[in-house]
């Protein structure tokens, strides 16, 4: 009996600790978002800084985003072709690839690429600034780190992510079409006919809406975790790992919430 009570107490304590951690992070993220919004609405964010971050996040991520999207499109097309051959009309493959890429693979794979390439870098960069007192130096010079460091990164994420997902969708769709012709002999016209069969304009809006939400949450978490970093180089490593895990889980949870909310 004592063992059961002790186990239950331990489980409750762990649950309490986790809940407290989640509440603390949620509060911190909310406050950070509010401060960024205030600085932006007050016109205090430099456009040049936003453009620099947009270049870092967008232009420099483009090759990796395209490679990922092309491979996603090719794999979806090949696997669909393998399953449909001699069972379902092959032109349906166009719909499977188009809907798969635009509704799911384009936004999610791009988000994963941006988490790895940009989110981790932002946490490590701001974390290093935090542990080397550069953030304190900004404050001591009367400059607000939220305005100077956080806002440009978040605004760039919101602007760049839908553009990257647009490119990823196009690249994935085109690669899937080429792969369908090469592997199962489905012509381009038949592919596009299939793609148009189940197409809704809402699907594209849904895809870009997902991209905007991911473009908001990835920089927000990476900045928040960077600002929370303590404890030298080891602390920067720990914060970066935790940040990547936090961003991936958040993106996947948000992704799971999208269909019930917006596809009915």
């Amino acid at each position, binding site marked *: 009996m004592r063992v059961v009570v002790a186990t239950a107490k331990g489980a409750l304590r762990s649950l309490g600790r986790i809940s407290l951690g989640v509440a603390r992070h949620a509060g911190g993220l909310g406050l950070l978002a509010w401060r960024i919004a205030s600085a932006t609405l007050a016109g205090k964010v430099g456009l040049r800084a936003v453009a620099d971050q947009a270049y870092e996040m967008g232009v420099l991520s483009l090759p990796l985003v395209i490679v990922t999207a092309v491979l996603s499109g090719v794999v979806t097309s090949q696997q669909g072709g393998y399953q449909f051959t001699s069972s379902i009309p092959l032109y349906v493959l166009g719909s499977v690839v188009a809907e798969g890429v635009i509704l799911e693979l384009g936004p999610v794979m791009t988000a994963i690429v941006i988490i790895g390439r940009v989110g981790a870098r932002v946490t490590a960069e701001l974390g290093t600034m935090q542990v080397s007192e550069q953030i*304190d*130096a900004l*404050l*001591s010079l*009367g400059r*607000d780190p939220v305005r100077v460091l956080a806002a440009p990164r978040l605004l760039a994420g919101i602007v760049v992510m839908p553009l990257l997902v647009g490119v990823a969708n196009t690249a994935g769709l085109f690669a899937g079409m080429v792969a369908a012709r090469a592997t199962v002999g489905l012509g381009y016209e038949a592919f596009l006919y299939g793609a148009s069969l189940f197409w809704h304009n809402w699907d594209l809006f849904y895809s870009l809406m997902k991209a905007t939400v991911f473009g908001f949450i990835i920089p927000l978490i990476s900045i928040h975790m960077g600002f929370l970093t303590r404890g030298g180089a080891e602390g920067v490593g720990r914060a970066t790992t935790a940040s990547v895990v936090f961003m991936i889980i958040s993106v996947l949870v948000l992704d799971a919430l999208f269909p019930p909310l917006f596809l009915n």
Partner: protein
Amino acid sequence: MIEYVDVHKAFDVPVLSGVDLTVETGETLSIVGPSGTGKSVLLKTTLGLIVPDRGDARVDGQSVVGASSRELQQIRRKVGYVFQYAALFDSMTIFENVSQGLPDDVLETLDRKEVVRRVCRSLEDVNLDPAQVLGKLPAELSGGMRKRVGLARAIVGKPQILLYDEPVTGLDPVNTAAVEHLITEIAEKMGVTSVVVTHDIEGALGISDRIALLDHGRMRFVGTPEEFRGSQDPLVVAFADRHAAAAAALKIMEEP
């Protein structure tokens, strides 16, 4: 004038436990004490970089605790802070780093030539040749030069108060003497109030009007360098005399 009134701060364990200290306008005061006694924490409360759990820090009568962001901004404009490892911005050149010390509203009114002139003058004030360092990144400079750039950034906005956090830590004796000479020179030339947190007791005795010894989160001694040297307090004696400090350390190590 800076006043620390009953300042308490704890990070899991108490660091500052009721510190009272006044730094008069124009004086140079050094805070010394064993590692981990909260010297840097006390310094950071002056600018609201760390908020005390209890008590207050006041700059020219203006409270830091409970200050609005605008009030904090006003306080920070009066104060230059020299960080332990300079805290220069890695991705910016030395020119960009030092020009960050100019307040935004001042920057808006100056043309580029005037900004360059002010940055160059600050670099010259800390004995650096602008032509050699302006376009370099912090990583391309030695530790001593980085500290001097940190000092140039702190003085370019013409503050009334300068706070130094371990300004000579990690420097060789030549650079240590150079930085300590700069602290005295700038205090005299600009008439600033200076607070220096340091482990270098010899240097502190040479540059300070008063010395404060912080121990276990409390002020143990505050007085002139002469009073410090003449004190019979065992900890002050240990700090004032390196040989006595070594003997005290040996005694602690030999204790069972």
